[in-house]
């Protein structure tokens, strides 16, 4: 059974109560050569306290821009419309105050830990700086920094705190970045491809660590990734993005096990995971649409094996499939099947 709801409205977050983070109808554009490129066209989702929401998509899907919008780090980008509410407070109109919220209430873990750390300061100094910034009692900062380094698995933290970033391995650096991120017990941790630069064996360790610190701090985790196995391992719910819009949303097992949107289906099939070597890997024909074209109809329609006349004519709304799942696809519309 499918029920149509008004477009842009995500399914209600389970558990009741207001979600920690609520993004509604977020529209972001960048200026390029006198033209405006719309990179996010109406993104809506919610994250509950303690929950892990994975945002998955390919390059150009808008997943990183979504994260940067929340952090207020868009650079040349402009939020044209929409709201980002953290604990009920809209972050979009805030300018100066955002500095305080960022780092205290929201922390970010980036892909490249070497770029996230300052090469001129010891890791201990950078960690203490984060604690100072978060208003941690001064006399306890030193001890807390050492404790944090220990808790993220840096051996001999007392001595290692005077090491510089270049003296650590990639995995160790990412551990330090995580220690800095959780220093102020943030309500929300945003991790943008946190393990993409790491080896497979270290990746598992870092993912486990992120999960552990998240649980201890009771933080919500917004995980941006292109890697389906990372999604499977970490997420409670998953949001599938394509060309600046959310195409599917739902609990991780259901979305990975029984994807509803044709794009999600194609994306999962394209991972050469246990595929028969004698056959080609299923691919998605064509390529991601250019941001210069304003899409009429469904943005995935040109590449979709199930495309119907309606798909080219009108953009599908988000159809709520059941309590927890949603898909932006005309196939979910009862009228189409009638």
């Amino acid at each position, binding site marked *: 059974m499918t029920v149509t709801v008004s477009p842009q409205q995500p399914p209600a977050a389970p558990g009741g109560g207001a979600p920690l983070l609520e993004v509604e109808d977020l529209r972001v554009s960048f200026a390029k050569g006198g033209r405006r490129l719309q990179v996010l066209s109406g993104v809506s989702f919610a994250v509950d306290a303690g929950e892990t929401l994975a945002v998955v998509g*390919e*390059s150009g899907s808008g997943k990183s821009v979504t994260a940067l919008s929340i952090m207020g780090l868009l650079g040349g980008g402009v939020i044209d419309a929409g709201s980002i509410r953290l604990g009920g407070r809209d972050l979009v109109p805030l300018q100066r105050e955002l500095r305080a919220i960022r780092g205290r209430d929201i922390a970010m873990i980036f892909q490249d830990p070497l770029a996230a750390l300052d090469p001129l300061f010891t890791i201990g100094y950078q960690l203490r700086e984060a604690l100072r910034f978060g208003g941690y009692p001064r006399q306890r900062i030193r001890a807390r920094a050492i404790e944090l380094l220990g808790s993220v698995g840096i051996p001999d933290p007392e001595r290692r705190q005077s090491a510089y970033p270049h003296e650590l*391995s*990639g*995995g*160790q650096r990412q551990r330090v970045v995580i220690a800095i991120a959780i220093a102020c017990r943030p309500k929300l941790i945003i991790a943008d491809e946190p393990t993409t630069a790491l*080896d*497979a*064996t*270290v*990746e*598992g*360790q870092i993912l*486990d660590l992120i999960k552990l610190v998240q649980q201890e701090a009771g933080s919500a985790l917004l995980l941006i990734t*292109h890697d*389906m*196995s990372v999604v*499977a*391992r*970490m997420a409670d719910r998953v949001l599938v993005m394509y060309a600046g819009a959310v195409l599917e949303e739902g609990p991780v*097992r259901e979305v*990975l*096990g029984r994807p509803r949107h044709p794009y999600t289906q*194609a*994306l999962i099939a*394209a*991972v*050469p*995971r*246990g*595929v028969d*070597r004698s056959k*080609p*890997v*299923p*691919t*998605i024909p064509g*390529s991601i649409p250019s941001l210069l074209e304003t899409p009429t109809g469904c943005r995935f329609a040109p590449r979709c094996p199930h495309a119907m006349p309606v798909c080219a004519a009108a953009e599908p709304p988000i159809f709520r499939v059941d309590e927890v799942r949603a898909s932006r696809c005309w196939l979910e519309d009862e009228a189409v099947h009638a």
Partner: protein
Amino acid sequence: MSAPLLTVQDLVKTFALPRRSIRGPRPTVQAVSGISFRLERGRTLGLVGESGSGKSTTARLITGLVRPTSGTIDFGGVDVARADRRQQRALRRRMQMIFQDPRGSLDPRMRVRDVIGEGLVVHRIASGARLRTRVDELLEMVGLRTGDAEKYAHEFSGGQAQRIAIARALATDPEIIVCDEAVSALDVSVQAQILNLLRQLQDELGLAYLFISHDLNVVRYMSDEMIVMYLGKAVETGPAARIFEEPAHPYTQALLSTIAQDEWADPQSATPGVAGEIPSPTSPPSGCRFHTRCPLAFDRCRVEEPSYAVLGEGHLAACHLSHDRAAIA
């Protein structure tokens, strides 16, 4: 069995590091410590391992970009390691490389036609009208339009740029292509297209691939044989399908557990993989190099380096426990 295209024997590469003090000896690091394998026409050899395992150094040794400290690389009767300039030139024609970042490996100031045709000009294989026809033919082979020849590399997406890099590699009719993380920077849907293209070209042209990747799903799909490297050593080698089914070395087991097939359905089945991180190659552990991270290590592992246990069908594992198992079987 036909004669292998490439036979590598006991390959060793030691790099000298900067002196720590004026008097002390110059420290060295052994990036590759005794690797042997064969590569046959039309086959793919997968090379997996963490950073610092020596897989990229192995690729550079084979392509003649660095000279080995010892060991031989026999490529159709010529030893790559001892080839003179003229021989090296000929070898480069028959062996090409594709790198991870296609845009970084293509000159942004050259037109695609010149990027692809450069090898043909350098090796004096074709010029004029023949060069044009060949470049057009190569573009079609990799699924690009002949009209693309007049564009510049930066006008293409990552996947298309990688197709250009493949066309460039194919220009001189090579027998071996070394793919060093060739699909790692690509999006999943594009990656699938490039994997299919590589497999199709292999079928059509009988190419042999040395395929280096950290993505085990990709290696499994591409490889006929594989080598698992750890700190410069091959800890396990053999038919790829067999190693993925029944990994014998504890390191391989841990590595493969990270892509356990049921992990997507049940996150609890995700194993922690290997504890700790790869030790510094400047001072590799005694005995078995993996013993510091091995969950099954015992006293002997710390002192005695294991030889290869023969497990049948060309499957070898350098582990004391595999010897015991092979003896019982």
